[in-house]
């Protein structure tokens, strides 16, 4: 299990990265934390002609609280997110999401940007990005652009980043007041990718009525999936078990054929999506009531 030969370069600026990507096109691969890429290289399942290591670019490693959101540099290690006081205090959902990722030994290397750009449909950060309508900043030959999460995740391991574009920052909005959240996963082993996962937020008004619901299912399709129809069913209700059951049925029923693999059939994944959605909505609602 030794990687095939490749060239390696460690540019120190974004324009250099863009130029390299233009030069090598699809033959190049960006190396961030390497927690997904390196196993593929060791197995010789990925065969780039050149690796572009973006770890030497200054100022891609930061966590900044901005107005209504947290802006995180693409090369920020997941462990830095985990250990940042700002994150724990201002964005507990981001903290909890981070703690669901693998193990500290992986989070020490793995980056937030790398996880989002890799776009594994069972990964937590892409799901969170979709849940929160995060904004991805990318730089390419035509300059910088912002891509919303809805437009970002295209299919399995594929994003709307162009071949010569590099992700530089992710902005994750803070949760509104009186909002509760929940992450539900079923893993066979702690720290593994979930067979199915659900993230939810519920915002209640002073009277306990749901003003906003966000629901993302992950590990069940080619990308994380926003369950918009189910969300709509909750808004305007005082959500309780009846609503959770109905919304969960809707969210799981709306799924296209879920993934099927050695650990879980499509049918099982769909049912897990239903169960975990119901549990997530119940927990998020309870937390929202507590947060009020």
């Amino acid at each position, binding site marked *: 299990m*030794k990687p095939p030969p490749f060239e390696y370069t460690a540019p120190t600026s974004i324009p250099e990265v863009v130029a390299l990507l233009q030069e090598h096109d699809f033959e190049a691969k960006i190396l961030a934390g390497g927690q997904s890429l390196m196993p593929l290289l060791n197995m010789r399942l990925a065969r780039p002609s050149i690796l572009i290591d973006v770890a030497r670019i200054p100022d891609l490693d930061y966590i900044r609280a901005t107005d209504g959101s947290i802006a995180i540099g693409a090369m920020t290690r997941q462990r830095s997110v985990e250990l940042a006081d700002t994150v724990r205090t201002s964005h507990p959902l981001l903290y909890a999401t981070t703690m669901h990722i693998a193990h500290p030994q992986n989070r020490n290397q793995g980056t937030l940007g790398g996880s989002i750009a890799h776009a594994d449909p069972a990964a937590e950060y892409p799901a969170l990005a979709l849940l929160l309508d995060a904004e991805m900043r990318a730089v390419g030959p035509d300059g910088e652009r912002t891509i919303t999460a809805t437009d970002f995740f295209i299919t399995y391991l594929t994003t709307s980043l162009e071949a010569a574009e590099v992700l530089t920052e992710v902005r994750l909005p803070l949760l509104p007041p009186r909002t509760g959240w929940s992450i539900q996963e079923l893993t066979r082993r702690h720290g593994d990718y979930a067979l199915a996962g659900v993230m939810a937020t519920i915002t209640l008004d002073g009277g306990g009525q749901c003003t906003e619901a966000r629901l993302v299912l992950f590990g069940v399709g080619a990308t994380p999936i926003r369950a918009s129809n189910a969300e709509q069913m909750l808004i305007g209700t005082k959500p309780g078990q009846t609503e959770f059951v109905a919304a969960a049925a809707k969210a799981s029923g709306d799924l296209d054929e879920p993934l099927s693999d050695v650990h879980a059939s499509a049918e*099982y994944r769909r049912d897990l999506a239903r169960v975990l959605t119901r549990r997530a909505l119940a927990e998020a609602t309870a937390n929202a009531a507590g947060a009020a």
Partner: protein
Amino acid sequence: MAIDDRPGITIPNRIEDLPTSQARFIGRTVDRVEDPMLLTGRAEFIDNLSFPGMLHCAILRSPHAHARVVSIDIAEASRAPGVLAVLTGEDCQRWSQPTPTVPEGWGTYCLATDKVRFVGEPVVAIAATNRYLAEDALELITVEYEELPPIVDATKAADANAPLVFEDKGSNVMLQRVFTWGDVDGAFAAAAHVFTETFRWHRLGANPIETFGVISQWDPIENALTCHGSFQSQYHMALARSIVLGLPSNKVRLMSQPHGGSFGGKGGARGTDITALLSRKIGGRPVKWIEDRMEYLAGGSSQSWDRHYEASLALDANGTVTGFKVKLLDDLGATAEGWGAVSAAKPLAAFTGCYAIPVAQYDLTIVATNKLPGSPYRGMGPPPHNFVLESLMDIAARELGIDPADLRRRNYIPKDQFPYTIASGNEYDSGDYDLALDTVLEMSDYQKLRAEQAAARAEGRLLGIGLVNTIEPGVFDWNAYAIVGQPGTGVPEGATVSIDVFGKINVKVGFSLEGQGQYTVLTQVLADYFGVELTDVRVVPCDTLSAPPHFGPGGSRLGVSITGAALGAADLLRQKLIKVAAGLLQTEPANVELMDGKLQITGVPGAEIPLAQVAGAMIARSDLLPPGVDPNAEATYAWTATGRTPADDQGRAKSYLTAANACHVVLVEVDRETGHVEILKYFIADDCGTRLNPANVEGMTQGGVAQGVGAALLEEYCYNEDGQLLTSTFMDYLLPSVYEVPMTEKKALVTPSPFTPLGAKGVGEGAMHTTPAAILCAINDAVAHLGVRATAVPASPHRLWTLLQDAKPGG
């Protein structure tokens, strides 16, 4: 009391009988002598070794489960950077024989010749200046295959139209026989109740964190072979290499390096042969091969126990079990090279578990399929067998309305009936099964657990209690495996003990570190025997040509065997020392004894000589020695269990010498909606006789629990219908982590063996025997009222979810 294996040898059966007024080390937890080296990363694991001129091997493996090899083109690979040799099946046909197997005649060459029989089978091997270049060169090899239909489903392997793994055999059935012990038909005809169920145990395996590795060097002048490797049993590996490679047995020298776990699944025969032949091909440069994890999972000694069971239990009206029948279809995979078949034989050593079941039957079929050949794994077969027996006990208890603890108690072999011969022929040495049951019931507060279960069920939660007891046959003997064609009775293990002129003690043995702490046990025994400190004893691992007779670790045997070997050698040495001391003290040998590290005249205070002085006289003062005294302060003893009998026509033999027993209680919660199982509490009472080093035993027990949790819930090799392995990485083959393994509460019971050195019993596999059954029994205890029954291992969430879809509504 002493065990006199041979005239003139005294091996004590009790710690109290050692020549010391107070044993300071043996029977106590002491720091392991192995640990400083391991903790500092200095142990010489095979991949840490490097020799001048050493090359690195990489292996091209079959992508097909079953295909004819039409052609192999190695021209481009041979010219690749760094490549010095390329080995193919043609070389193997010229220079070697197919590997010996059990049953006989189901082996192949170490590289494929005419066809490939499983995904991952080695086809071409390359030696290059480093592993990176060797792997690069593999990509330049072209192999043309003609795909053949594979046989993957064992239940169809014996069908008339099934593809044949070995055409010349005319069938995929490696072995088919029914063993009947007593009037089984009569017992079942007369039974008040008969319970029958089918069970499925899916493939899993050892997965030590270190894979197999070897460095082989062929001497082209002497025509001799030297190999360093992570060999679990270097001697047997060396004998087989002599046969396969056509070398005189004394021209093959194998040295086992410390290895990072084995659990039976280290293997290495193919890798050793491949590197040996590569070294031969390039004129004698050493060649290293380190099996990588994906090679191990798909092509190593990684897979065991792919089993389909149908079993029945007969009971009388009082709940006494009167008969037990097991029909096993064992899917051994493509060849019988890995000694996997002995796993089907070992259950005979404890076929009827803790119970006095008078008659039993074993209907055994072993078939070949196009999957990786099966290998031994911790427990060697009883873990699935115990899952079957204990599940049936629970089914019977449930159907008859008897508490599972009570049904078991009614059927225990009473403690006053030992030694006890079971229906399948083995003899249990000693035991007190009621005591283990009572102990674990008290530890777990069993009635309170039942109340907790009832309260949870009222809330709609599924809690279940598993209570399982098993026997761990210890100190294996080859005769236990006679039914699958393994010859032999007796497994000698030797030690050579010497004392130097400074009174320091060396002990030479034929095995290396593997994790069980055997060097520490040896050190404890000899330090107490000779009244010295632990630091005064050094264990010296020797290669196959310089060690006394040996087998090494395996079959819950080495702790007892090496203790016997050390004590036998120590006794021989003691007798020599006494003769010398008698001369020095000017008395008769009969008046001299060894006690607390001194040779002394019995009953005469002060008339004593220190050990070192006696040894010193032997080595340096022949003028002082009595006439005819052997001046060598060294003795060798090879211990083997006495009273072992060859198997009769139904496979019955006195085989494993000891019968340790354990009773586990586990509380689990099954998530009714997702099928996920959580282990909430775990209790163990176990009895392995005298504990030579209690912490070692506890560690082995907890480690066995961990592997048992893996077996019960996580670990499974999945092949698709084309014979492709779908779980080829650690991301899919799931080893349990600290989150999945319960912290257990344990209590040690001690019923010494009357037959063994210091009364110790073989131990190390017991929890693996018990935990999978206990967890499955607990799961069924949680879900039985819903009208479903879990009968497949592992009980993955998907499997349980599927099962629970059929649950009674509202249950």
